[in-house]
């Protein structure tokens, strides 16, 4: 199992997933992120998926869930950098991630958080 680093940037948390995600790593990340939100009081999170070349239904569920869970805690999550191949594959799988905020890249993701949180 690998650990995905979570960086703090003012009121936000920044995550860039750079490794092949196995199920354990994904579950551990979910827990780590919620814990980090709790400890830091972050109001926004950007999860960058630029380096992720495949998202299957399990990882999609974990990502969708972490967005909802963070939302329950009062933090907004934006997913950024989803690759064209990944977007096409997700739709083929029938996964629409409809209520998940997304942005083109980290920069746009931070802009989106600023807008949504009015900070």
């Amino acid at each position, binding site marked *: 199992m690998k650990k995905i680093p979570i960086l703090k940037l003012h009121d936000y948390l920044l995550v860039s997933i750079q490794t*092949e995600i*196995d*199920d*354990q790593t994904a579950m551990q990340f979910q827990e780590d992120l919620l814990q980090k939100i709790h400890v830091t009081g972050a109001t926004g999170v950007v999860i960058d998926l630029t380096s992720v*070349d*495949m*998202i*299957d*239904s*399990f990882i*999609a*569920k974990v990502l969708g869930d972490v967005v909802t869970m963070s939302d329950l805690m009062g933090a907004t999550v934006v997913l950024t950098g989803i*690759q*064209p*191949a*990944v977007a*096409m*594959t997700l739709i*083929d*799988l*029938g*996964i629409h991630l409809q209520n998940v905020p997304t942005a083109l890249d980290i920069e746009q993701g931070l802009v989106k958080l600023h807008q949504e949180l009015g900070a």
Partner: protein
Amino acid sequence: MEKSCVSIKIELDIVAARQLGRELAKQVGFSVVDQARFATAVSELARNIYLYADQGEISFDIIKNMNQSGLRLTATDKGPGIRDISQVMQDGYTTSGGLGAGLPGVRRLMDDFDIISEENIGTTVTVVKWKR
């Protein structure tokens, strides 16, 4: 023809299977999108083995017909089998708390899809992706 196998026993074998799947998809000359489609299908089928049958095997072979090459994936297990195949082919049907996207998703990701299952004997899913 070349044949490669990954046995699925522990959760990390899912990653091993999809990495090999992607490697082979690259070798056959699939586009980046089709590589992702193939790797995703491998991941779904390997996870099904791990979740429902405990263990099994994923094998790949490179196939050729007249003017096309492709990659065939066979996922075999000796698990409990599937009672109602039409039910598991419906989007959103799940017994494991997942998204229920696995099998219907795999069918959409691949070009050919075939499933044989018998209760208490096991399940074999055979899928093919052709190079475009």
